[in-house]
Structures are given as structure tokens and as C-alpha cells.
């Protein structure tokens, strides 16, 4: 007896219990099986979600067949990178700004923020703009649309070293209902430094955690704070001059980038900390108990790194604001962590961009947690999940060059008088689906210890005409848009 004899209804019943990978194998068994999948919108949608690395959105009025059509259009749009819309807006040079989770935000004056929900044609997200007038003199801010959270760092008053971080709602600027009663996280800065105003801030929100990294030059007083924002409890404090950047890795881990560590002859490293373990004494990066550290390569022996920048969006477990009713969104499992590693080769600075599949780090950590072992992970042991990019160019600290598994080269690329936007897609199933010609698998681009590569698909398209002559563009990427920041002070955004 063969499955062939089963009524179609039963076949689709069986397929409901299969994962997408098995469904794809099933589809290739024979003609009848292929038809059993291809005639079902639900199964095709499940396969398409898997193949495009997306996740189904909240239940809503959008029918499965409609979701499938939108997903195919979305996928197509990213494959072809055809501009569907273009908008520009001015950005005063004194403005603070932020691009996160499809929201572009900038400050207006000293206390007001302007938010703009970037639109998506294919996912049916409407553009929306709103202003939040706060009572806080802003030094910097961060946001998380899925929790309606706005994190405001208040400008430090002279003569005090007690700083305040205000937890507000993104929609209205009121105290966030889930924040502690005061709505404020407080922290102390060393008194000798409070007079300075040239601090850089790096603010990230991931689920229950808010992390703020204070950077300055000289770097002697760089500090990282991570709070559980709903209780106001400080979980992690690190004081370390070598510290340059941080991001969240999975729900409970923080990844901190340091340009030099004692783990080897001056290797730059990524340190992973577990937020279950309370470490608030403000120790150095090596003295704070870490899960492990990932060594990074050097450009040449005895030439320490000069800067280590990190870009990784969105945060683990991020999901879009449910009110948007998006039919699907970027999946949880895969993220790129993109590093910009800079070396001083007098008189110039050379920078290398290293792309890491977050899952490689998670896997190493999980294995270490289960089996124990050496805590310093040499570069050779984890570089198989990385790619070194040939396109160089410095970033600014606040570059948003990656979203999910896509990366946009921050600088336009010259091709015979035309300036191109280059987007690389590292998602494994999307890479597998791409035609051979578009893939980029070879790549030993300069760092001597580099052997393995993470394959990607490259797509280049000319910048929109309006931007061909703009000087000093910095390109950024979100879930649906390519955003170009003109350093002279305007913002252009081209939607897919």
C-alpha cells in the first residue's frame, strides 16, 4: 500500500506535523507529493517563512494566502533591491538620532524627540510620525518599539556625579508603566569626569535589560551598566579602558568588545557575560567573571587594535510592535554581529569588517556550559562562522549597518561613475536559494589568520538619482528600508 492512495485531505493532515525542512524534502519525492504541498497556501506559507528566515506575525485579519503573497513580494524586493519610494528629511547637525526596529528617531531642541515609523510597501506598514516633548534635557536616548520603551539619558548637571536614566513610553513620553516607581535608573560617574561633555553613549535595550556604555577619550573611565529595567536592579557593571562596544547575545548574555586583553599577545576579544550572575563591583573586563572570551585576529603581530565597533540589530527576542499588524517579521534565530576592527598603521588607520553569525557564538557558549572547557576561545576555533569583508571604510560608532542577516556596506561603492548600494545577505537558506553567480564564498581579504568564510549573496544597485551627487553618505539598513545619512545633515530613506 502506498501513501498515493491516501485522500489529499489525509496527506495534508500528515504534512501539518512536519517541519519546513522535511516538507521541502517531501515535495521532491514525486509529482503527487509536490502537488500536495503546492496546492496548500498554509504549507506554502510555512515553507516560504522558513526559506526566507521570517516568522509569522500575530494573528490578524490577513488571510494565509495574502500573507504568502506579501512574503513572496517582500523576498523578491530584497532580492532585486528596486527602490519603490524615496523620502528625505533634514537632520540638524546637533541632533541626536537613532534607527531601531523600523523607527527613525531624532531630537529636536533640547527636550523633544521626533519619531518616524518607516513605511513598508510589501508588509503594509504605514508611515507615521509623532513627537514626544519630555521634561528631560537630553544627552542621548534609546528605544524599543515592541515594549513601547523609550530610554532617556539626562544631561549631567555640573557639580554632580549622579546621573539619571528615565524610562518612558515611546508613544507618549509618560513614565513607563512597567518601570520602577520613580521611573528612573540612577548611576554614579567618577566626579573628576563629570565636567567633561564629550562622552559617547551606546544604549541598547533587549527584553528586560537596558545596557548603557559610556565611552570617552582618554578611555580610562569607560563604564558599562546593564540594568533589569522593570525592577531597577543593576546586574552588571564593568569599568575598563579597553572596552569599546557591546551588544546582547541571546536573552541572558552580554557581549563586550575590548581592543586588547591579556588572553594573548594583545588580541582584541569579545567577552561574554551571563546576566544571571550579578557582577556590580565595577571590576575590569578580565576580573569580572565571564562565560568565555572569543579572540579576534590581529592585522600583524605586535600591532594592537585601535578601535572595535559592533553592530547587531535587532535585539534577541525582538518582535515588531503588534499594533502595526505586520504579517511576518525577521526571525529570532539568526543575527549578524558585525565588527569593525581598526588598526593604526601610521599614518593611516586600516579597518577590517568581520561578519559573525550569532549562532556560532551561542553554540560555543552552550557547549562550554554543558561540557566545560577552556574559557579563552582562540580565533581558529570559531572563525568558521565568520566572514571578512573586502569592503572597508570606517564606521561611525552608531552605524546601523546590519538588520537580521543582512548587511549594507556603509559607504557607496563606485562602479564606472555610478555609486552603488551593496547589500550582503548571509542567511543560510536564502544563500542556498540564490543563483551561483550572485554568491560570494571565496574571500581571504587580508588578515593572515583568516581561513574560513561565511557565504553571502551580494546585490548591488545604483543609489537613487537624488543621492548620486550627495557627498559623505552613510548607508544603514532596517527591516524594510535602506537609509542614507548625509553627514552634512539630511536623511534620505528609500523603501522597499
Amino acid at each position: 500500500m502506498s501513501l498515493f492512495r491516501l485522500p489529499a485531505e489525509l496527506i495534508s493532515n500528515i504534512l501539518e506535523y512536519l517541519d519546513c525542512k522535511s516538507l521541502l524534502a517531501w515535495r521532491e519525492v514525486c509529482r503527487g507529493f509536490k502537488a500536495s504541498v503546492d496546492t496548500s497556501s498554509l504549507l506554502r506559507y510555512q515553507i516560504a517563512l522558513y526559506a526566507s528566515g521570517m516568522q509569522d506575525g500575530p494573528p490578524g485579519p490577513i488571510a494565509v494566502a495574502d500573507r504568502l503573497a506579501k512574503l513572496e513580494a517582500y523576498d523578491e524586493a530584497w532580492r532585486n533591491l528596486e527602490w519603490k519610494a524615496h523620502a528625505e528629511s533634514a537632520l540638524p547637525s546637533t541632533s541626536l538620532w537613532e534607527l531601531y526596529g523600523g523607527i527613525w528617531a531624532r531630537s529636536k531642541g533640547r527636550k523633544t524627540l521626533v519619531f518616524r515609523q518607516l513605511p513598508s510597501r510589501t508588509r503594509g506598514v504605514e508611515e507615521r510620525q509623532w513627537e514626544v516633548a519630555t521634561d528631560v534635557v537630553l544627552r542621548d536616548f534609546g528605544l524599543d518599539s515592541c515594549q513601547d520603551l523609550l530610554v532617556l539619558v539626562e544631561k549631567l548637571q555640573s557639580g554632580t556625579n549622579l546621573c539619571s536614566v528615565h524610562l518612558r513610553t515611546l508613544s507618549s513620553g509618560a513614565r513607563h508603566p512597567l518601570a520602577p516607581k520613580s521611573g528612573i535608573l540612577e548611576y554614579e560617574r567618577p566626579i573628576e569626569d563629570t565636567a567633561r561633555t564629550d562622552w559617547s553613549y551606546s544604549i541598547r535595550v533587549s527584553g528586560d535589560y537596558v545596557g548603557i556604555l559610556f565611552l570617552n577619550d582618554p578611555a580610562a573611565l569607560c563604564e558599562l551598566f546593564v540594568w533589569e529595567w522593570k525592577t531597577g536592579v543593576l546586574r552588571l557593571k564593568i569599568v575598563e579602558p579597553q572596552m569599546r562596544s557591546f551588544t546582547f547575545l541571546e536573552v541572558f548574555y552580554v557581549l563586550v568588545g575590548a581592543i586588547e586583553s591579556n588572553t594573548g599577545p594583545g588580541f582584541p576579544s569579545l567577552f561574554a557575560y551571563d546576566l544571571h550572575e550579578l557582577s556590580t563591583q565595577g571590576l575590569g573586563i578580565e576580573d569580572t567573571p565571564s562565560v568565555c572570551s572569543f579572540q579576534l585576529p590581529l592585522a600583524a603581530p605586535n600591532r594592537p587594535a585601535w578601535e572595535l565597533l559592533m553592530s547587531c540589530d535587532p535585539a534577541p527576542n525582538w518582535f515588531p510592535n503588534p499594533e502595526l499588524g505586520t504579517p511576518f517579521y525577521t526571525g529570532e534565530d539568526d543575527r549578524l554581529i558585525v565588527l569593525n576592527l581598526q588598526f593604526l598603521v601610521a599614518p593611516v588607520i586600516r579597518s577590517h569588517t568581520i561578519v559573525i553569525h550569532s549562532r556560532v557564538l551561542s553554540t560555543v557558549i552552550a557547549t562550554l556550559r554543558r561540557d566545560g572547557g577552556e574559557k579563552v576561545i582562540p580565533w581558529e576555533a570559531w572563525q568558521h562562522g565568520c566572514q571578512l569583508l573586502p569592503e572597508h571604510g570606517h564606521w561611525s560608532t552608531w552605524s546601523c549597518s546590519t538588520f537580521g542577516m543582512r548587511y549594507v556596506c556603509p559607504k557607496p561603492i563606485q562602479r564606472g561613475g555610478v555609486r552603488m548600494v551593496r547589500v550582503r545577505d548571509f542567511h543560510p537558506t536564502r544563500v542556498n536559494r540564490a543563483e551561483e553567480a550572485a554568491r560570494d564564498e571565496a574571500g581571504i581579504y587580508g588578515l593572515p589568520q583568516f581561513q574560513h568564510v561565511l557565504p553571502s549573496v551580494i546585490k548591488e544597485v545604483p543609489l537613487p538619482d537624488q543621492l548620486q551627487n550627495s557627498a559623505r553618505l552613510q548607508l544603514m539598513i532596517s527591516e524594510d528600508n535602506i537609509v542614507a545619512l548625509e553627514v552634512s545633515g539630511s536623511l534620505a530613506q528609500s523603501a522597499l
Partner: protein
Amino acid sequence: MPTIVSVDDSTVPGEGSSRLLLLVSSDNKHIVVEEDIMSRSRFISKQVEGFEATSQRHAILLPFSSFVLNKVIEYCSHYRGYYLLEDDPDAAPPGRSPVREWDQEFLDVDRNMLLRIIKAAHYLEIKSLVGSCARAIADMIRGKTTEEMREILGVENDFTPEEEHSPSSKCTG
């Protein structure tokens, strides 16, 4: 084809108040079973409603062997009196059936038997059993390659070589 046999309830000893049904399998075996055991089957329930409407009870002919039928009766006897959401005609259609340990053991049979049971359960409209069988079949092939699936399910590859290599038949890897 077996002939339709009239059944007189009073001639068959029953237990409690449940009436008896006569089921006839494709190999012409007559199997007597209590009506409430089989009430899980929408098909049987509809037949019984028909009997009541016409005040005429007769044997129910089924297109599968007594071997399979006995297996289905075993299932229905095990869950006699149990409420299973999938079998509630008034409940909203549920998605996947939950994992039920007893079912897993009960369905630990060879492939052909499993396919026969799911067909019988489908015919009899016993959704809980269809769900458990579907889960069991999916378990056999989950994570397997296309080639392994062909072997497990005994299915021939009927794609032409051109079709097999065309991009439309290969969705992703």
C-alpha cells in the same frame, strides 16, 4: 458484497443500556460492538441517527478488513467515555492533535498497517485517531532526505530528469 442483515437488538445480549451494532468488514466478518463505544465515529453516529429516524436497524458495511476494524474498535474501547477535543463535533476544529502516549504505543505498527488505520479512521470520521496516525506517519519521515522518504514510504520517483533539475521543483536547500 455481503447482504444487508437485519438486526434485532433483543436477540443479542447487551451490557447496560448501550445498544449493539453489527459491523461487517470487507472480508465479510460480522463484528458486534456496543453502540456507545463507536459513538466517537461521526460516520457511525450518523448511521445510528438514520436508524432512529427510520426505526430500522441494519448492519453497517465497512470497506476495510476485520483486522483493521478490530484495531479501530480497540482504540475506541480504550477511549470509551473519554472526551477528546478533536472528536467533539461542536468544538472548533483543532489544529494538531496532542501527543498521547497510549496512542503512540498503539500505533507502533508497520507502515502498511498505519496507512490502513488512518484510512479507516478517515472513513469512520474519528478525528482524534486520524490526528494520532498523521503524527505517527510524520514521525517516520521527519528529518529524512527525499531519497530516504521514498524508501520509507515505498514511493517511486516519477519526476523526469529535467523536472528534477529545474529550479521550480527545488525550492531551497
